[in-house]
């Protein structure tokens, strides 16, 4: 059944009625996410990666666990509130974000110029390891954008997402070799460019 529906979608011919029914369904807020059953401690994983600036404006938000849109925004606000009031000379770890996993989680962050990079991880991740990972992430961005700054992130959010996807997948670290990440990203960008050429599409820039 699911397969049949998917095939219909694959050819872009979803019946109008069905689509309306689906859209009506989407308009309703999704059902509340059931809490993780109290059983085992969570597996080592990154729950969310957030970038926001010194004023709390989000520049990237990636959640590896399903949250409603409202909750996502609340988490960003809460995290900004927690992180921004800390001095520069204190440690980069913080406990006590209430929304994202409660006491089982930690916020690990680094502050670069105008941007905060925050990784929300569960208690079994290595704090120091994540700090290094943030550094790798930022250095990779720096290589891809050549002297990355906040404006790059504002105008190329999709590219930042693509870079992140080559580094972290499903809340787990995928690749930490900067050169490898940059190579794969470049190859994919080249593939996109060649398509624009073939299809003669008016889009050079989305």
């Amino acid at each position, binding site marked *: 059944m699911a397969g049949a529906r998917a095939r219909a979608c694959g050819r872009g011919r979803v019946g109008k009625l069905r689509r309306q029914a689906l859209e009506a369904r989407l308009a309703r807020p999704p059902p509340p996410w059931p809490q993780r059953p109290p059983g085992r401690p969570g597996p080592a994983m990154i729950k969310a990666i957030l970038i926001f600036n010194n004023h709390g404006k989000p520049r990237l938000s*990636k959640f590896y666990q399903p949250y409603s849109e409202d909750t996502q925004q609340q988490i960003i606000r809460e995290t900004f509130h927690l992180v921004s009031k800390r001095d520069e000379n204190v440690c980069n770890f913080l406990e006590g974000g209430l929304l994202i996993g409660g006491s089982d989680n930690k916020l690990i962050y680094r502050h670069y110029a105008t941007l905060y990079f925050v990784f929300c991880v569960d208690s079994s991740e290595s704090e*120091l390891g994540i700090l290094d990972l943030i550094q790798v992430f930022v250095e990779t961005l720096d290589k891809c954008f050549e002297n990355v700054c906040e404006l790059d992130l504002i105008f190329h959010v999709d590219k930042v997402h693509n870079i992140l996807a080559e580094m972290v997948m499903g809340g787990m670290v995928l690749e930490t070799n900067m050169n490898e990440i940059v190579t794969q990203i470049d190859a994919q960008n080249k*593939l*996109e460019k060649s398509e624009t050429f073939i299809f003669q599409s008016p889009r050079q820039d989305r």
Partner: protein
Amino acid sequence: MPAPIRLRELIRTIRTARTQAEEREMIQKECAAIRSSFREEDNTYRCRNVAKLLYMHMLGYPAHFGQLECLKLIASQKFTDKRIGYLGAMLLLDERQDVHLLMTNCIKNDLNHSTQFVQGLALCTLGCMGSSEMCRDLAGEVEKLLKTSNSYLRKKAALCAVHVIRKVPELMEMFLPATKNLLNEKNHGVLHTSVVLLTEMCERSPDMLAHFRKNEKLVPQLVRILKNLIMSGYSPEHDVSGISDPFLQVRILRLLRILGRNDDDSSEAMNDILAQVATNTETSKNVGNAILYETVLTIMDIKSESGLRVLAINILGRFLLNNDKNIRYVALTSLLKTVQTDHNAVQRHRSTIVDCLKDLDVSIKRRAMELSFALVNGNNIRGMMKELLYFLDSCEPEFKADCASGIFLAAEKYAPSKRWHIDTIMRVLTTAGSYVRDDAVPNLIQLITNSVEMHAYTVQRLYKAILGDYSQQPLVQVAAWCIGEYGDLLVSGQCEEEEPIQVTEDEVLDILESVLISNMSTSVTRGYALTAIMKLSTRFTCTVNRIKKVVSIYGSSIDVELQQRAVEYNALFKKYDHMRSALLERMPVMEKVTTNGPSEIVQTNGETEPAPLETKPPPSGPQPTSQANDLLDLLGGNDITPVIPTAPTSKPASAGGELLDLLGDITLTGAPAAAPAPASVPQLSQPPFLLDGLSSQPLFNDITPGIPSITAYNKNGLKIEFTFERSNTNPSVTVITIQASNSTELDMTDFVFQAAVPKTFQLQLLSPSSSVVPAFNTGTITQVIKVLNPQKQQLRMRIKLTYNHKGSAMQDLAEVNNFPPQSWQ
């Protein structure tokens, strides 16, 4: 229709918005344009529109109407479309919406695509948001890709497999054959993700763990890889600040930890390499410390040699002295983890740990505080307490409550003398009085009553403490209680411990009256003060008239609680003056009922009855008792129970006026018959008729009385009591009220009580009063079970309890077979 504006232009426009409202307006306008473009099934600009939606989504605007468009983009032939489509699907969709299932087929096709990047996108999306249905459908494809020689796909497939296993654990075996050659891979990305996959499998299933230990010889393989990493010279590809792939090293150390846990052979096989890593790692940079930290955790977790453990603790000791706050933080965290097993080794770093209490960083302070409490023992209690009291004095408000209860606990456990104990608690009350938990007051009062030889000393200290400052409510409450109880000792000035002070009766009354008047006093505190003044009427000789006057003034107080007290006390002066001295006699020494003493009777609201105590006699039917007895009961607690052999636990017949009837109920709710409860009388913070209404409200009006209650469960500080009621109209229904209480020092959260009965019964579980069982018996959860037992068989029940306690999830099963025959016959 004109071409929609580009993402870049949209962002530029939005950035010109000066107010939030202006921004919202712009976005709404753009959303309308996007919607109409979607309606027209525009294929050319779909990609651009979805990209704009994703930007708005990040800013917090609703974008769910783009979900179906993402699916269409995924189905497109172009990589550009697919890339945005998959990104949008990951951001806008999750497994809670059925729409995501429409992707399954597209993902399946893309997993078999000829371009590796399309396959990569599909793997990434599946690994991020695949639901269990999707994982079941696509696990075969993932397994195939796990065996490919393409390392770009292989590493993604490995993480995807982890996700599949997390969603559908029974699919784990499917990936077992593919793991065989994973560790022979040269590519570090693949090695890294493979170690993650193996870790997941080992952690999830003991069988897998045994298989990898014994059959696959995983430990030697990992040791070899780790050795190559630390021995190999500089390789520019994997170098991070001079260390070869620290991320991989950390992952391997973590897997070794799981393999070595509780296994002598595996631990033996990794001892050498751990020692090598611990001694050879360069620690001038964060990366080196990350590895060292992981090594220490592994050493502490496996069955390692004692020399190695000492080495590990010393590394942490060195971490504590590090300039980098992050390193100090992880050192404290890991010392906290090991303090139970290697107490003495950690004890050696005590002074450094105590120094961290003075750190400016709250994260470090909190860890240091927790660790300091873990290190307190009988030998160092005096010194440690001095530091912790100093910390309590100077720390941020958010620490005070935890710190205060930590000090109380430690003092109770290791107090070298009673005097020291009383001094310490008083010190806490004076420095952080407003932050202590509610049960501190009754606890301290009990402690003071029980140390008879200290009464004069204590009352004098307390009097001095509140003389200048009566803003700390708990302190004033304890002081008022003690002055009321031991006022005669205070005035007579016979104190051996300290230089006695000369106080007159009027001076004592002055201070109590100023507490009554003060704006800072809470209603509860005033209640304490008024009762204290009343008690002094039998202990003081020449000020009785003054006391009478004060009491009668408060007979018209607007505070209902105070007014009621005053009216009752007034009655005591007039109608029952002959019994006054007997009623107000000194409290007897209390026996400790539970480890937490009188906290059992502390109530946070009037909704629940006090947790019944073990010694509570079975509730008897309504007993007509004389009015005087009600009063006696109220004021005297236990010391006059001989007068009334069976304390009335149910509502007495209202022989007298309404008022006296209410008094009887104070006893009912405030002080369980057999538990002397000095604090309870002044402690009631709500007018008793409120309690009356809620606590003695029966479920049926026609209950048969007299079924004894039972303790159904009592383990790990969690106690569950069953009380029974049966309906006269339908005798086959038994109504069981469960009351769960918690005597430990931490709340139990997410408490769920489930019950099952044999098939011949029917059971209905009503919703519980709360899901949190507060610590220190400061409250209970009540839940009502109705059991229909038409055949009147012996009642049996199986109960299941789940709750979170001290950060870990607890679960327990129990059988209840000791139901009293009256509850089912």
